[in-house]
């Protein structure tokens, strides 16, 4: 009811106008402009200047003419779709078991399940080569003891495997969330009306969690479509859209062709988001307001053993690659056997001297970008939610535009915008920082908006009636109340930026190389030890920042919000 009021805080005061103006300029310069450039460029022949007569569809027509292009598109769609479906098949039972079966250590299981999501997936991808590659441990064991030749890990098989095991937690976490927040009375009333368990699952439970499942699958599809690291490591000759973009830009210096391919993948991401919107919007799902009691937990012996065993096996398989990286990072010598023959800190010593600069760069870039994104995202969320009644839609749309841009497309857009023309940033740290901010601001904007929407406007109104000016109200009430949401967003942003490769690979320079690029270079050069050591360090940094977020939110800040 309160949101219908156009209260005093809706009025645009000078500060709001200033924020709106600065935000508008930043968005125009660093978001709208590069995206317009990538769109325009993709209709220009290679190296041609921007002129109306020059416009052409030649880059797009290659999808019809060139088998490389055609195959890349087909490959991208195949691996992304297959991975989404497989992730659903693996994730759905796990979500159900954790939500509805009495099992020990559920929270531990869920925390472990988030691990693959916070660790950059291309790290895990390489260890699949160690396990299942031509000379991989599992491959050798199978050949030796079973006489079975495993299929090659390179190409579609490996990519799908890495995507599926890297992203299935999305399905688990989202579906678990929906299952555990749906009102159990819905299922109970179905039981009372005489529905069998299977019938209820099919007609009540499943439809309730459909939006969450759909969201999980679309996220996985988008992530897979936009991933560069995994296909770069595991693809070999098997090109997908992202590796093709990289090939065009880094191999042929053809920014315009790269832009066209990026646009095609943006089109697919956009379509899948529209599909999701269509799926969830059309049906009037019961929302999760009144939860009277927890859902009944199944505690039959059989289902409990099955559930626990299933979750443990799935998580073990998903976490094996990460364990492999840890193991490899300490390996001094590795003969033909399953385990290293000697251990040492040699790899760590090596990366601390050889890769010291990338480590510093990563920390510096992620910190700067997170701070800037947090400040800008929060201010913009404030203006969008509390001030701009009419412009809100445009602001929201603009800021969230990078959502549908795969990381590598953001990289191409920023490179198109700032490698020539008035503002040349290529080769500097700024180009990476700008790309990071643009790419991650939607996340902070979203979490800050969500935090703000949940703040009762009466909090701000009470402050005003107590005699506090707008500035004082914002500083003492609004922003402190938004802080937990913003901090959570910032911590997640920081850790994803540490593991960022898709955008960085397009924009980095010899001076501004990041940890992920260093790892990638080690992998390409077959220097597994240093790659694993650096990867382990990265994983630790990411985990520390996520744990910090949890701790911050869970303990001190979370406790502030125990309102009746």
């Amino acid at each position, binding site marked *: 009811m309160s949101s219908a009021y156009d*209260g005093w805080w809706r009025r645009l005061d000078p500060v709001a106008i200033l924020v709106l103006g600065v935000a508008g300029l930043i968005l125009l310069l660093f978001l709208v402009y590069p995206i317009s450039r990538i769109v325009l460029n993709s209709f220009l022949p290679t190296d041609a200047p921007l002129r109306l007569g020059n416009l052409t569809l030649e880059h797009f027509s290659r999808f019809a003419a060139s088998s490389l292009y055609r195959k890349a598109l087909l490959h991208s769609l195949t691996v992304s779709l297959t991975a989404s479906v497989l992730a659903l098949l693996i994730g759905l039972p796990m979500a159900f078991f954790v939500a509805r079966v009495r099992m020990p250590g559920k929270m531990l299981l869920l925390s472990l399940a988030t691990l693959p999501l916070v660790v950059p997936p291309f790290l895990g991808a390489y260890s699949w080569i160690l396990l299942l590659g031509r000379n991989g441990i599992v491959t050798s064991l199978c050949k030796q003891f079973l006489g079975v030749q495993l299929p090659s890990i390179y190409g579609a098989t490996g990519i799908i495997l890495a995507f599926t095991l890297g992203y299935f937690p999305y399905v688990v976490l989202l579906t678990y969330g929906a299952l555990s927040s749906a009102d159990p009375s819905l299922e109970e009333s179905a039981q009372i009306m005489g529905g069998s368990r299977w019938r209820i699952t099919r007609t009540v439970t499943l439809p309730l969690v459909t939006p969450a499942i759909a969201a999980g699958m679309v996220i996985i599809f988008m992530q897979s479509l936009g991933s560069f690291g995994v296909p770069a490591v595991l693809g070999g000759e098997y090109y997908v859209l992202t590796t093709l973009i990289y090939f065009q830009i880094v191999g042929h210096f053809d920014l315009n062709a790269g832009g066209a391919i990026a646009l095609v993948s943006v089109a697919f991401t956009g379509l899948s988001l529209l599909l999701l919107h269509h799926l969830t919007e059309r049906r009037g799902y019961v929302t999760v307001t009144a939860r009277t009691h927890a859902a009944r937990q199944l505690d039959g012996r059989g289902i409990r053993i099955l559930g626990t065993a299933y979750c443990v096996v799935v998580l073990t398989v998903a976490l094996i690659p990460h364990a492999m990286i840890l193991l490899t990072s300490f390996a001094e010598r590795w003969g033909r056997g399953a385990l290293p023959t000697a251990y040492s800190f040699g790899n760590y010593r090596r990366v601390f001297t050889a890769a010291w600069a990338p480590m510093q760069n990563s920390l510096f870039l992620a910190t700067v970008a997170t701070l800037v994104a947090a400040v800008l995202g929060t201010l913009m969320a404030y203006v969008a939610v509390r001030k701009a009644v009419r412009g809100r839609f445009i602001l929201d749309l603009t800021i969230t535009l990078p959502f549908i841009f795969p990381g590598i497309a953001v990289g191409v857009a920023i490179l198109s915008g700032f490698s020539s023309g008035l503002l040349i940033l290529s080769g500097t740290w700024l180009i990476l920082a700008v790309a990071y901010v643009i790419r991650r601001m939607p996340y902070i904007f979203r979490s800050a908006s969500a935090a703000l929407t949940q703040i009762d406007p009466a909090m701000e109104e009470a402050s005003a009636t107590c005699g506090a000016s707008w500035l004082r109200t914002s500083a003492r009430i609004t922003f402190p109340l938004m802080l937990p949401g913003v901090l959570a967003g910032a911590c997640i942003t920081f850790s994803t930026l540490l593991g960022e490769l898709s955008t960085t690979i397009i924009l980095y320079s010899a001076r501004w190389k990041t940890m992920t690029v260093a790892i990638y270079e080690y992998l390409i050069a077959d220097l597994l030890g240093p790659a694993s050591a650096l990867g382990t360090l990265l994983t630790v940094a990411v985990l520390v920042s996520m744990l910090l977020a949890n701790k911050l939110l869970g303990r001190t800040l979370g406790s502030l919000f125990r309102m009746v």
Partner: protein
Amino acid sequence: MTVSLVVADLCKTFGAGAEGVAAVRDVSFEVAAGELFTLLGPSGCGKTTTLRLIAGLETATAGRIVFDGQDFTALPPFRRNLGMVFQSYALYPHMSIFENVAYGLRARRAPDDEVRRRVREVLDLVGLAGYEDRRPGQLSGGQQQRIALARALVYGPRLLLLDEPLSNLDAKLRVYMREEIRKIQQRAGITTIYVTHDQEEALSISDRLAVMYQGEVIQIGTPSEVYAEPASVGVADFLGRANFLEAAVVDGGGPRVRVRLASGLLVEVVRGDPAWTPQAGEAATLFIRPERVSLGTDGGGEDVTLQATVVRRTFLGGIVRYALDAGGARPVLADLQRLLPGAEIGRPIPVRFQLADVRAYPASQRPWGETV
């Protein structure tokens, strides 16, 4: 009585043009210094919007608000020096109780020792001294309510606004807290505007009240005036249980109106709606409160007796409510102190009441929310 607050021809329209919704239409009233004045009405009647206009949280489309000679109309809320308690209390979860209460003093840059002194005083006033270091989440609903009141009073505002302050409490606490609020308000001697949709709350707490419906003020008066002499069928029905009897106007000339009841009885009653000029032959509705209706033959002084049959009997604790068929479209309700021997269901029994308790309205008036 010295007039403190003047609200004159206040209008508020949300949205613009044809889609605009008039939430408040030409609302005018005056509140005396130290008075507790209630805005009462069903949800959507414009009472909260009126309060928010007085607070400055909304901007008036037209009209004026003057407080103690100062024109409030264009003043932002933080310049009005008023205190407001919100329905949700709006206590700050990130601050201690002390800081919550001290908030208005800090905004006024009061020195630290004064802040401490005033917070202690106001916490004493609301009976929560010693709670300074707690967090809002650690307090019960009633305690949060009192802290919200303390926060609104601590800087000595001249006007206190209360927006449905009790609606989040359970029934028993609600009754207790409304007495507490009344006591605190009288001790502080502060002019107060109280918004509620609960008629019992309004009747019990107010010095005077304004009944609002569809953005307009329908009637202003003391609780007993408004309860006993409602200005319309809608007000009569909203303020409590009401009997409505059909009648026909015989002669509407004088201060009283002569009507014929369904039973054929000819009586003279007072007009409830002063704006109504009854015409002979026009259909009328007579109103009487159920507690003014008695049953049986004994007792004296009643002017009207109707023959009726007991239809239903409901035991409500303090009273027994009888529903009787007296030949009208709806049963007549009679609230008695105790069960009446012999008044069994299906039994015929006389229904009696005094004409002084009856008011007449045009039959075109209906209870609010009832479709014609």
